[in-house]
């Protein structure tokens, strides 16, 4: 008797990404690769001033140009489209896809050209003359809060997008605030740390800028829209609503998406305008963002100011935390703009048992590109504020930064742990992560190395940061789109497996991890499994990929759907094998009777039988296709500890990262190789925030970092080899025990690099340095100037 070789279990293995060959060979299909007969091209004429009233738009020369199909001004677009919807419960100024009478940031669209090709469209846009009455630009959020120099949206006095959201100890469901506990904590304090901290504005910079192709088929009365999005189902919902169509009449497709980092959650003006113009003109239209546009037209991230006060005893025990947040959200509310900084509120407790927390949030409009999610989205900011304060406490008390943290950790037996800010941490072992990192880094040895380097006059410093993140978003109570995910598994007639997921991976590698899971579940080769995603006509329902949710929520939905199919398939197999379904095992591409391996059918034979079931087993319908919605009971809370060593050039202030050790606990890992890739990317962006990245606006609201000549991204040569170490604390929230890891790398890395720089310069009496670490800033500290 011959036996097929045993198929190895794949979950937990370092399987190479199945998506990579097509990506690195240039064989993937992005939005810009979509070409349709008769397609017209859009170009957006954008405001080149930050704030102004539109007096007049003269598009006559543009309209007369050969190859120009049409020009739409804001008023004309407003006839086709209502204001753009937002996805948060906060009130919001009416936001027209194309500005009607006032422009509010550099890049705000004022007109759209429709033309034969991109070249004509671009030339025509240049021929449009816009006459503005300039208004003062609001740039500094703290001045903006006083209504200075002007108010951007008259219905929002003092530019307060969100006046004040209180959170923490003594805040009830109605928002009533009782400060007695926090006041008591600060009254009892032996030491109080107070610091204003800047978490600067960043540009997400996905390698593929945005793009959209919209095709309204007059004959069918239905719309197909291709967009570089992280969530085609949400896109479909909004495109249908604004175009007066049913969701059944819109098909949204996210083809290959070259990264999003949160910036492609939002449904943008260009998506709406393309769909409306296609519907109006009855022709397919395409818009592709160029890199310069991306810097102004795609949402930015972070930009939160924190006033932090930490009350503690002299032994390092933290008694209370006050965190006053001011978020500069730019000119408008986009889909999630208002909600992102609330995640900073939610995570203000960090990994510590802080008895009293008072966190408040104010969101402010300024004449800048709107903010929205950016990798980490609110949690890196919380981590940064709290971890910097813990470092300052350690410095004040002359304690080791690890010891201060250790003294305050939430303990493993306390989970699930309800924080003062209302999060329910699922599981954790923070001390284990800390100890693993300290040991892996050789903390004591590093300290000796640092001290030896200092003795030679070198400016070397060490930094450490803990983090906890809210991931696996999230129960439907926390997301207006619903917090579930959908999966469907179909065993095809030939025994191969087609699966669809409502998660919409754009770099996360779920085509690989989900296939690993299903291959194991059914005992078939991974080559027999295909994961479909990103097309609402193929994937029945979905929410999307953001908030580090695709594995924890989307993966679980598929696992559940797989379980349902497997149960049904076992019943067909039981009928064929004349066995009891409970006695069957799925392995090596066969379904066999336990203990009687000769009594088996191949996977394909059982599949074929399920589609031509003669005779049909009693109580079964033909076919093998099942779906599942997974609604998680809670979020997941991955955590970890990052350690870095940095050296600063005494003459120039240039920082060099010498070492980075990361311990990340994301629960059970489906594929450690992919997890490491995700962490590397996150670390790069987190370190980038610490060392090189910053969106800078001039006082007139002009963007000064409008290209890669001025907006720096970190390069591979800026990094040492990252040293990654594992630590596994599964979550009870889903059956996979997986927590999510897409954003984690950005959380601990930023504060630990800043901490290392502060440590390196501690000899100059510095306690805190605001992001980012410009060489000049560090040089000024070294040479006695102001930071």
């Amino acid at each position: 008797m011959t036996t097929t070789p045993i198929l190895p279990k794949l979950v937990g293995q370092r399987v190479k990404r199945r998506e990579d060959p097509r990506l690195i060979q240039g064989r993937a299909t992005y939005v810009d690769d979509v070409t349709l007969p008769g397609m017209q091209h859009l170009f957006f004429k954008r405001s080149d001033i930050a704030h102004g009233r539109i007096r007049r738009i003269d598009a006559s020369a543009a309209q007369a140009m050969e190859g120009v199909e049409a020009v739409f001004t804001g008023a004309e677009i407003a006839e086709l489209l209502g204001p753009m919807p937002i996805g948060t419960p906060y009130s919001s100024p009416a936001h027209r896809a194309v500005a009607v009478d006032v422009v509010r940031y550099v890049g705000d669209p004022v007109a759209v050209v429709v033309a034969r090709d991109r070249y004509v469209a671009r030339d025509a846009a240049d021929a449009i003359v816009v006459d503005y009455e300039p208004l003062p630009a609001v740039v500094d959020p703290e001045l903006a809060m006083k209504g200075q120099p002007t108010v951007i949206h008259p219905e929002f006095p003092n530019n307060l997008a969100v006046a004040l959201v209180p959170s923490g100890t003594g805040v009830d469901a109605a928002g009533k605030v009782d400060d007695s506990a926090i006041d008591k904590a600060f009254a009892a304090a032996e030491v109080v740390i107070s610091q204003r901290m800047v978490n600067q504005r960043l540009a997400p910079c996905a390698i593929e800028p945005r793009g959209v192709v919209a095709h309204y088929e007059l004959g069918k009365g239905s719309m197909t829209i291709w967009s570089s999005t992280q969530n085609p189902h949400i896109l479909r919902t909004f495109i249908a609503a604004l175009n007066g169509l049913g969701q059944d009449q819109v098909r949204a497709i996210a083809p290959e998406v070259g990264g999003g980092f949160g910036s492609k959650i939002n449904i943008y003006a260009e998506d709406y305008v393309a769909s409306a113009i296609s519907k109006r003109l009855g022709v397919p239209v395409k818009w592709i963002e160029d890199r310069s546009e991306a810097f102004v037209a795609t949402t930015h991230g972070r930009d939160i100011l924190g006033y932090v006060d930490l009350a503690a005893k002299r032994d390092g025990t933290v008694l209370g935390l006050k965190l006053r947040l001011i978020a500069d959200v730019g000119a408008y509310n986009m889909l999630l703009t208002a909600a992102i900084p609330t995640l900073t509120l939610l995570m203000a407790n960090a990994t510590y048992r802080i008895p009293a927390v008072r966190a408040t949030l104010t969101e402010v409009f300024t004449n800048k590109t709107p903010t929205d999610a950016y990798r980490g989205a609110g949690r890196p900011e919380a981590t940064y504020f709290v971890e910097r304060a813990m470092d300052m406490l350690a410095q004040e008390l002359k304690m080791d930064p690890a010891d201060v943290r250790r003294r305050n950790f939430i303990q493993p037996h306390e989970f699930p742990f309800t924080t003062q800010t209302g999060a329910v941490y699922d599981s954790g072992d923070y001390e284990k992560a800390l100890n693993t990192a300290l040991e892996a880094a050789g903390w004591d040895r590093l300290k000796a190395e640092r001290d030896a380097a200092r003795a030679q006059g070198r400016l070397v410093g060490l930094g450490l940061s803990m983090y906890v993140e809210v991931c696996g978003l999230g129960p439907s109570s926390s997301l207006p789109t619903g917090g579930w995910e959908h999966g469907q598994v179909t065993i095809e007639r030939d025994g191969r497996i087609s699966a669809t997921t409502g998660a919409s991976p754009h770099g996360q590698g779920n085509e690989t991890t989900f296939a690993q899971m299903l291959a194991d579940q059914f005992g078939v080769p991974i080559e027999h499994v295909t994961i479909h995603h990103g097309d609402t006509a193929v994937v029945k329902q979905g929410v999307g990929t953001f908030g580090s949710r695709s594995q924890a929520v989307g993966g679980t939905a598929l696992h559940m759907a797989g379980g349902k199919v497997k149960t049904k398939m076992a019943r067909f197999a039981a009928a064929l094998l004349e066995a009891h379904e409970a006695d069957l095992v799925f392995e090596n591409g066969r379904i066999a009777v336990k203990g009687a391996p000769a009594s088996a059918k191949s996977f394909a034979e059982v599949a074929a039988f399920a589609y031509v079931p003669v005779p049909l087993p009693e109580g079964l319908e033909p076919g093998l296709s099942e779906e599942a919605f997974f609604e998680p009971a809670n979020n997941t809370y991955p955590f970890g500890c990052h350690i870095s060593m940095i050296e600063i050039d005494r003459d120039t202030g240039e920082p060099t990262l010498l070492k980075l050790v990361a311990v990340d606990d994301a629960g059970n890992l489906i594929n450690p190789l992919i997890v490491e890739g995700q962490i590397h990317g996150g670390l790069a962006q987190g370190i980038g925030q610490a060392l090189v990245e910053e969106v800078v606006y001039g006082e007139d609201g002009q963007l000064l970092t409008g290209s890669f000549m001025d907006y720096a991204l970190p390069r591979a040569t800026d990094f040492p080899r990252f040293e990654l170490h594992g630590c596994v604390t599964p979550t009870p929230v889903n059956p996979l025990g997986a927590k999510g890891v897409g954003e984690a790398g950005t959380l601990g890395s930023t504060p630990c690099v800043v901490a290392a720089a502060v440590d390196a310069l501690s000899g100059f009496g510095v306690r805190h340095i605001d992001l980012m670490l410009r060489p000049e800033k560090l040089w000024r500290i070294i040479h006695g100037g102001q930071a």
Partner: protein
Amino acid sequence: MIPTPFDYARATSLDDAVAKLKASGGRAKLIAGGHSLVPLMKFRLSEPAALIDIARIPGLSGIREQEGRIHIGAGTVHHDVASSALLRDKCPVVADTAAQIGDPQVRHRGTLGGSLAHADPAADYPAVVLALDADIHLKGPKGWRVVKASDFFKDLFTVDMEADEIIVSVQFAPVRAAAYAKLHQRASRYAIVGVAAALDVSGGRVESARVGLTGAGSHATRLTAVEQALAGQPLTPAAIGAAAERAGAGLTHVNADIHASEDYRRAMVPVFTRRALEGALRRATASTAGRQRSGPSSSGTRWR
């Protein structure tokens, strides 16, 4: 990003390029690597009606030695300069500088001639051609012209070159005891401050020194105060340190932007001057003679 429409022609020879340039009556621009010109065109800051491509003119690129001087063709890309064995041996400062320009893509497209003609205030090569006292060979409708590097850079993006002239080559006597030191702007990798220093050394003393500065002002300049301070000094770190301190003297206009304020840039000039001089000193002490001359070499392409 889309430029305004333009005509395009590929020049087949130097004379062809000169003729095409003249015929265009100032409407055309030369394009070599395109790595300064194309970004300007994409932003519509430059809108030439026609481009004359000189990238494939036979003989316009290449590095060779002739009668003790190094000739680098204007069309030579930064990567070829960075990896030239001849330069690494005879005049490593040029190769080092090229290796620090931008990123690999830029270095495989951008050319020496394009960099000098464009004269970006933060470009690296200008500092080096100043320190090497190089001659810049130009050809125009009226024939050949040679401009000394020290006369070439006039102002912001402005050089001593007519609109219908072409840079053909850069020629200089190789100096081993020379080095380039640069503070990178972290986004573009251009120089916030870049200093090239070349020393003529004999008997343990600096006979003469030439120091070129880029990044600080509107255009690259010689740091004559430093040069004078070094002349006749012993070849020691102390002498170098003292001379470098004078680097800021006489700098009138100093650039300021979001990457570096005027104060900071000013402070960086002596720092990078010292580093460049230290690098040159290391090379001077490593080789016996500071300036090495060698006989003509038969290798390399000819371009004139």
